[in-house]
């Protein structure tokens, strides 16, 4: 019998995947506009279709997470509580050791972490800022250049590009770690790809403080 801790329920996983698929489609279709040569390479029909798809998915990208937060306001609270919780010594130490650890995971033992690691909290804040920026600038770009001066439209366009750049930088690392490509994170993929459970051992390795609290309370423990 292996002891597991429930980490993400079906609702959270569905929300994650909706947001992820939406983000990937938006990224790929947006890339055709971001790099003019690429747009010209695929031709008018593909590019025009891509812009329509981009707008449809942009609506989903905004509406679905917003709905999920309305349906479950506790999730919204939980997300932002985790994002802005006070950093303790372990959090700071984690950040200090992050790069040495990534290059030599067999050597470093990372300090215990809360439900969201400090590194992920840091990248999540940047990610949320970029997402907020890309949504806002996207809406204003959609409204168009006929409202307001042209330089304003240009600011939205540059802002949209900049936020895309930020997300594009963070996304590969998220896949590399969250997708379990990095071997020490191998079984972590299960929390989103699988049933949302994590073994006690993995939970202790990745989120020590959170795992200890869960084991002590016993509420979310599953044995199978």
């Amino acid at each position: 019998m292996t002891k597991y801790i429930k980490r993400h329920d079906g609702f959270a996983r569905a929300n994650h995947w909706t947001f992820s698929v939406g983000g990937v489609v938006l990224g790929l279709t947006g890339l055709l506009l971001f790099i003019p040569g690429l747009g010209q390479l695929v031709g008018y029909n593909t590019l025009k279709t891509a812009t329509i798809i981009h707008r449809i998915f942009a609506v989903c990208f905004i509406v679905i997470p917003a709905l999920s937060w309305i349906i479950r306001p506790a999730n919204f609270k939980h997300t932002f509580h985790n994002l802005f919780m006070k950093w303790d010594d372990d959090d700071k130490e984690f950040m200090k050791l992050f790069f040495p650890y990534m290059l030599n995971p067999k050597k470093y033992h990372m300090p215990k972490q809360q439900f969201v690691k400090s590194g992920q909290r840091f990248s999540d804040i940047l990610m949320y800022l970029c997402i907020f920026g890309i949504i806002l600038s996207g809406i204003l770009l959609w409204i168009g250049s006929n409202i307001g001066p042209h330089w304003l439209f240009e600011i939205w366009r540059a802002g949209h590009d900049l936020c895309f750049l930020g997300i594009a930088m963070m996304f590969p690392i998220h896949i590399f770690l969250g997708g379990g490509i990095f071997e020490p994170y191998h079984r972590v993929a299960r929390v989103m790809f699988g049933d949302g459970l994590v073994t006690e051992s993995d939970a202790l390795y990745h989120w020590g403080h959170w795992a200890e609290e869960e084991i002590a309370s016993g509420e979310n423990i599953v044995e199978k």
Partner: protein
Amino acid sequence: MTTDVKDVAIYYDASKCTACKGCQVACKQWNQLPSALSTEGVKFNDSFEYPPNNSGDTWLHIGFDEGEDSNGDFRWAFGRTSCQHCTDAACVSVCPSGACHKTPQGAVVIDKEICIGCQYCVAACPFGVPKFRERDNKTRKCWMCLDRIENGKRPACVSTCPTGALDFGDRYELIARAKARVEEIKPNKPDAVVYGIKEMGGLHVIQVLPFGPGAVGLPENPKVSNLTLASKYMKPFAGIGALAVAGFAALSWIRGRGYERGPEDLSYDPKTGITYDKGVPVDYDKPLAKDDTVDASAEASEQERGGE
């Protein structure tokens, strides 16, 4: 004029212009651009200017500006707002579909069939020329009447000018003519300049401006905006950044290969508050974890055996 014509330009001598707006009307007629048939929200302002600005349906706009010249004398400046057909056209560099392109003649043209209406060119143009037309979701602007010049005719605006303020021909010949004209009017118009020789790499609309560019709302030194430049440089930076991130991830993946930790290696005793790695307490203060705990585990087993 034949189809092999190269580097042509429109010549506009504002000192000869009476602002009759014949060119504005001819442009609309030839290009079948409808009138707005409304005041477009413009209140009476005792100006002869109408419509208030260029738009997706008004590709050439004649502006009127009343003011004083550098001698303090009254001046009435007429200006032509239309595509300048830049050599280094910002609109061309930002167009994602390739709709906005340069022709061998030097004209900058938006191919409406492949314009996706992203409006990036609208924002990039330092002259505020391309305009988004909502009725067909396309951005439109002057195209130098390419259909006419390819068939040996002059652009519609030029062909209708009654005062000779507009002309069309070889760009270098028109520059020489504009320079001569400025020399001629300089005694009475001290602010007179030729506009379009070097701006944006050289414009394909050469203008004689008796009161200088500022009087007709043209930028003294037009340039691609910093934001457009930033976006341009952001693209290679994004590529380099993504490669750097991918490179780091690849290196990390290589360094992480062979890492082993079983699904039940770590456990926690809530009563003592101690985390164990294969039964050995984990010392989080020690930086060496995996190798260290393996050694510690072996050492513990050794001690256990000794104890027995």
